[in-house]
């Protein structure tokens, strides 16, 4: 587990990370969401042991990360602009990284290169931006580090590649307990890949929750009441996060489990009643509105 406790970091007069406390569990895909300048990269760079926090403490599997070889062997950091040696090819990078990460799986790496159609002898300088990102991700995965810290690494990957990487993540998580931590400024990039999301804003954490928990605790309902009294009666029992009405069709976003919501509607007469799935975006809108933010302005552009 990566434990981040009361971490703060300033650059000159700018507070990049402000007293953040987050736990990143194991074998989950942790999404780190936030606008540009929210502190995602700074947080990941501190977790990777690149930057020293001004205050607070970071441990990885109960080991401090700063200049700690053992702790770092469990982590692989892919920055937003992945670095490759000048004039190198994937095999050169593999050779170097296999010295740094003795557990590096060279065979698997070669297999993945073939799978993703990345020529192993071609100079990385001639790769496209997307290919470089894929390569960085494959190097990270094959390093066999437990925690893969990806800073905007999925931005710009085409859907097929995303799906491919997602499959590998799933496999690696299952086989060896890989824990990817993915920072992105775009919620939609993470929607289909993350298990847990932390939302950063202005250096602080707005929320950090399991997506499943969030999905379980918020419901969207469409219904047509038998009478206006029924509607009034229901609204006395629940407080919708969001309510819309088109003619007689009412749509509510309600906090609570499906069972809670169904029980509430069981007390009123409806002509039509249906629970609908919520997108991650809708869940976030609801969640951030609770804490007083408009997520559309934060991460949906």
């Amino acid at each position: 587990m990566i434990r981040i406790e009361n971490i703060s970091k300033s650059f000159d007069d700018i507070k990049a990370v402000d007293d953040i406390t987050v736990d990143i569990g194991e074998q989950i895909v942790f999404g780190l969401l936030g606008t540009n300048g929210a502190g995602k990269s700074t947080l990941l760079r501190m977790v990777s042991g690149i930057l020293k926090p001004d205050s607070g403490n970071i441990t990885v599997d109960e080991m401090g990360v700063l200049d700690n070889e053992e702790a770092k062997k469990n982590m692989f950091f892919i920055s937003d602009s992945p670095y490759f040696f000048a004039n190198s090819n994937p095999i050169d990078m593999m050779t170097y990284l296999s010295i740094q990460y003795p557990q590096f799986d060279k065979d698997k790496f070669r297999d993945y290169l073939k799978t993703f159609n990345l020529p192993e002898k071609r100079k990385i300088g001639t790769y496209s931006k997307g290919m470089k990102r894929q390569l960085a991700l494959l190097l990270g995965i094959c390093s066999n580090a437990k925690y893969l810290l990806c800073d905007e690494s999925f931005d710009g990957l085409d859907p097929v590649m995303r799906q491919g990487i997602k499959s590998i993540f799933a496999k690696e998580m299952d086989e060896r307990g890989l824990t990817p931590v993915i920072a992105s400024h775009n919620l939609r990039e993470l929607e289909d890949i993350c298990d847990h999301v932390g939302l950063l804003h202005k250096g602080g954490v707005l929320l950090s929750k399991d997506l499943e928990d969030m999905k379980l605790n918020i419901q969207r309902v469409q219904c047509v009441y038998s009478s206006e009294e029924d509607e009034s009666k229901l609204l006395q029992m629940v407080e919708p996060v969001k309510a819309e009405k088109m003619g007689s069709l009412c749509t509510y976003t309600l906090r609570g489990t499906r069972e809670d919501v169904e029980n509430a509607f069981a007390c009123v007469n409806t002509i039509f009643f249906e629970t609908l799935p919520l997108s991650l975006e809708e869940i976030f809108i609801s969640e951030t509105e609770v804490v007083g933010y408009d997520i559309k302005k934060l991460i949906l552009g």
Partner: protein
Amino acid sequence: MTSKNSFLASIREDNKRKLWLWLTAVFMFVVFAPLLFLVLIAGVDEQTYIMSYGSMAHDMLLQAVAGICEVMLGVNVFRLFFGGIFAILAAYSGFYWLDDKIRVDFYVSMPEKKNRRFLVSILDGILMYVIPSFIGILLSHGILSAFGYAGAFSAADTCHSFFMCLLFFIGIYFLGILAISLTGNVFASVCAIAVIGLYEFILRGIWVGYAEFQRYMYHMESDLIPSFSPWGSFIRAVMEEQVKGSVSASSYIKLIILTLVVVIAAYFAYIYRPMESAGKTLAFKKMSTPLKLLLAIPAAVVIGLATIIVSDSNNSRFQVVVIFVVIISAVIICAIIEAIFELDVKAVLAKKLHWIITAVAAVAIFCMLRADVFGLDRYVPDKDSVESVAFIPSNFLDTYMFISKNMSYMNADEYCLENMFITDVDSVYELIDLSIKSYDEDCSKFDQEDVERYIRYGKYDDAVVIIRTKSGRVIFKNIPVPINNDRAHEIEDKLLSSEEFVNGYFSLKNQDLDLEISDDWNEFSNSFTTLALKTDEVKKMLECYKKDLDNFDYEKISNEGSIGTIYFSLNKRTGVTTYMRSNYFSIYPSMTNCVEYLAELGYEAPKITAKDFASVTITYYPDSEYDYDDIESYYSKMTADYDYSSDNSKNAIYVGEEDIEKLLPYMEMSDYSYKWGKGDIFEPAYTIEAEVSTAKLFEGNSRVMTNAARGTTIVYYYFKKGQVPDFVNKDLGIE
């Protein structure tokens, strides 16, 4: 074992990415240097040496080869230059990633301890220097052997120079790493290398500039060389080697300690460098203000001092201008530094408080230095604390060559610092005291500092005094000894006639006479005649000279003109190599042993008659004659409306035998220049050029040749002070 293997693997991997530097090293040390060495050695043509030097050809040839070896294999500027350049390149190659965020993210996130990454990088840099340069040295020795000069540069010398160069390389290499670690971009790193490397040099420049403007302070040329920088210490060690023949253990230890200090500083700067500083100017933000002040204040002071030196003006009005220059410089330098720190031109106008602090501090320091607030100009240590002194009469340049026991040429101050230990401190202090009082008194009569120069040249003879205290301090003073002061004469007579002075001043007195005398150029000559000397005659002459120096009497010699000069060369053999060192010494009438031996060799003082000259031209330069007691009016004339383009000199030409006959008793040959005399011996405003008669060309015996016969047809003479005949002045139209 795994760790060791992975360490070696890291080194191997790191080297893969420094291939360009390996190629550079191989080109510099394995290809270029040995190839140049080969070209130089092959260019030493034996036949040319045989034709030019005859029996000396072999020695001269070996000397040439040894000279090439010194340059290419020894410790010298050539090797230092390439070593230094390579050290900076290696430092940049190993640590430039610190300036780039993307690389920092990559390297620092790797599971590798900072210590190990540092070690891998520095080892790579050192190996890149050591291996190619070692191979280059082996190749050079191979070339020497192939040309039959094996042993021209000994294995011990090779090891010594290799070790010295390695120390220098490590010092500069880590200085580069230190600079890169303290900064965040290439431009700042280059600036930092310059600042760290030259900061002490600048401070010393201020000190030297300060001393330059004082009346009684003195500095040696070597005072500018830093003591606390790898290159400065290295140059000092090399100078020591040249003088003493070897680098002392203390210098070695100092060099090693200094190198270690730079290594440790670089290590800690690297370890504690915040990784977010990539791309910024300074790695440690807190350094910015003190660093700016530490750079801007001395720089402004230096500009102030340089302004005075360049303008060559020293009056009080000009000082106001210079202070203005210092203020402007302080502001501009502050603004530029701030712009560099912030990497933003607009920042030139930021932090105006720093402008004020810098300007005030620079002006204060400048004024303190100019006004000698701490009284350093007149400072001499307490007499009781003095162990010995050296007294160097700067105008008494009887031997212009000061040669160390290791046969290196030295400056007078360097030589006397090493060799002269006068224990009569009371006399020296009395002389210092009366000289300073006299000069201060003279200077107090004038309100223009520039007048001092004329006074100093005319009424005083400068002497350098080196005071060594019991605690090991060495203080240099430049003392104007009054020419017309009887007590000063008495003290000088006593000091300069002392055995301590003679032993410490005349380098030939300490020279080993078993040394080989070269037969290349040995002669006794004066303006009129030349006597060629054989090597054994030079040796005998040196013995006579040493005996005469045992009885050196300053009072006597100060009233004598030299009768001629012995020119000779000493050979120093090192292994198979011979070095030649030219030298000369003057012979005076009171040097009876030398004079008698010259007579034995057939030399007679030339009996000059009017018939010997075709013509005599006397030129009078009125501007060279002035009354020092009325120096201010002269100075005013020279600075106000004097027309420098006009030639107001006057000539008188004498061609008849009768006229020349009248002149002869007053003419003093310039050889007889009374180098030990006190003040002006000759009339400075008159020069006499005598054209030798063609008849003289055929004079001389088998050994003593006239210089005219060798092509010298003009002989220069002077009038002694106060002995210009009236008819000459009349002929020149002087009232």
